[in-house]
C-alpha cells in the first residue's frame, strides 16, 4: 500500500521565479532574498523526506488552458511536464531552461481511475500539459534540477467564476488520500498544494497586502481547517484580494493528511504584491 508521508503548502507568483533566476546570478532583489533564506529549511526537509512521488494541486493562469475549454479540475498524465511560455519565453532567461518535471503515467492513471470511478471527481485528463509559474516559480527554491521525484499535477480553475467551492477542494484532498492508499505500489507520496496568499493584481486594490490574514491562515490550517473552509470564498477575496481565493487550494493538501501530522516548518513574508508563505507537515512514520 502506498502512503502519504507529508504535505507542503507553498505560494507561487511569477516574480518569485524571476527573482530566483536573478539570485542565481548573484543579483538577489532585497525584497526576495528573505524568501530564499526562508525556504532553505524546506529544501533540506524535502531532501531528507525523499518522496517517491509528488501529487501537486496547483492553478494555471491561462498559460496552458484557454477559454476554449477551461477545466474545473484537470489531471496531467504524461511522461514530462515542460514549462509553459507565459509571454516571456522559458526560464531562466538566457538559458539553459529548467528541464521538464517528470511524470509517471502508471501512477497517474491509477490515481485518475480512483478519483473518477470511486470518488466521483469529473477530471479532465491531459496527456499534454505545460506548467506555468504555479509550479515552476517555487520549485527551484525547494529542489535542484533534475527534479527529485515524478509529479502528478492536478490543475484547479481559479481564473474565472464559478471556481470550485472550498469544500470541494477539501473533498479532493481527502479523495487523493484514499486514492494513494488504494495504490498497489509501496510509494511514499508527498502532497503539495500551491496558491498565492493574499494578493490582487488588477483594479485600484492592486497590491493589497494583508499579512495578518496570511498569518491567520497558516496558524489555523493544521488544527482548525473547518473554520477556514467555512469562511465564504468572497470573504477571503474581500479581505486578502481576489487572488487570495487560491488559498482554497491548500485545503486539498491539508485534507490529504491525517490529524496525527507534525507541523515541521512555517514561514511567511510579503516581498511585493503577493503574500508568500510555506508550511510543511509530516506524517508519523
Amino acid at each position: 500500500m502506498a502512503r502519504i508521508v507529508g504535505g507542503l503548502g507553498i505560494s507561487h507568483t511569477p516574480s518569485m521565479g524571476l527573482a530566483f533566476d536573478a539570485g542565481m546570478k548573484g543579483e538577489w532583489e532585497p525584497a526576495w532574498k528573505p524568501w530564499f533564506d526562508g525556504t532553505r529549511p524546506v529544501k533540506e526537509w524535502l531532501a531528507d523526506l525523499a518522496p517517491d512521488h509528488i501529487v501537486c494541486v496547483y492553478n494555471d493562469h491561462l498559460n496552458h488552458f484557454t477559454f476554449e475549454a477551461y477545466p474545473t479540475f484537470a489531471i496531467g498524465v504524461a511522461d514530462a511536464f515542460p514549462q509553459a511560455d507565459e509571454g516571456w519565453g522559458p526560464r531562466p532567461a538566457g538559458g539553459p531552461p529548467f528541464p521538464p518535471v517528470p511524470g509517471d503515467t502508471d501512477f497517474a492513471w491509477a490515481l485518475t481511475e480512483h478519483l473518477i470511478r470511486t470518488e466521483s471527481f469529473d477530471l479532465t485528463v491531459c496527456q499534454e500539459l505545460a506548467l506555468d509559474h504555479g509550479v515552476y516559480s517555487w520549485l527551484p527554491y525547494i529542489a535542484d534540477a533534475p527534479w527529485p521525484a515524478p509529479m502528478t499535477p492536478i490543475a484547479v480553475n481559479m481564473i474565472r467564476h464559478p471556481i470550485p467551492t472550498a469544500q470541494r477542494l477539501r473533498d479532493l484532498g481527502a479523495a487523493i488520500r484514499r486514492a494513494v492508499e488504494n495504490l498497489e505500489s509501496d510509494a511514499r507520496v508527498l502532497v503539495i498544494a500551491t496558491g498565492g496568499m493574499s494578493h490582487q493584481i488588477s483594479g485600484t486594490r492592486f497590491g493589497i497586502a494583508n499579512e495578518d490574514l496570511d498569518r491567520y491562515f497558516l496558524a489555523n490550517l493544521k488544527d482548525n481547517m473547518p473554520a477556514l473552509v467555512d469562511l465564504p470564498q468572497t470573504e477571503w477575496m474581500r479581505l486578502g484580494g481576489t487572488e487570495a481565493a487560491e488559498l482554497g487550494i491548500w485545503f486539498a493538501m491539508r485534507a490529504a493528511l491525517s490529524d496525527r501530522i507534525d507541523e515541521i516548518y512555517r514561514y511567511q513574508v510579503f516581498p511585493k504584491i503577493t503574500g508568500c508563505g510555506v508550511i510543511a507537515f509530516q506524517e508519523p512514520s
Partner: protein
Amino acid sequence: MPADATPPLQSPGFDLDEPGTYLYSGRASTRGFRLNRFALSLTKPANREAFLADEAAYMAGYDLSEDETALVRARDWTGLLKAGGHLQAILKLAATLGLNLYHIGAHNTGTDADSLYAMCPRGVSATPEPE
C-alpha cells in the same frame, strides 16, 4: 488618470466593487472571448514577433471589434479589462510589449508603474471575525 479611479494613495478597501475590483465572471469571459483568444495567442514566440511587426495585420486574424482593436492600440489596460479581457490574458499582451503587471495596475489605479511599484506592498490588516 481614468475618471473613475480612486486616488492611488488611499489604502485599498475591503470590498469587491469596481473600480477597486473587477471580478471575473462567466459573462465577462463571454464578452471578452475574442479579445482573450487574441491576447493568449501571444504565448507563442512566432505570434509575438508577428504582432510586433504589424499590429493591425495580426489583429485582423482574430475577429476583434473596432472598439477592441482601438483599446489595444491605445494600450488602454483598464478599458481592456472592462471589455472582458482577463488580467492573465492581457498580461501576455503587456509582456509582448516589454511591459508587466505594474503597467496594467498603474493604469487601473491612475498612477505610473514606478510609483505603483514603490507603493507596494500596500499593507492592510483584517482577519475574519469569529462567529
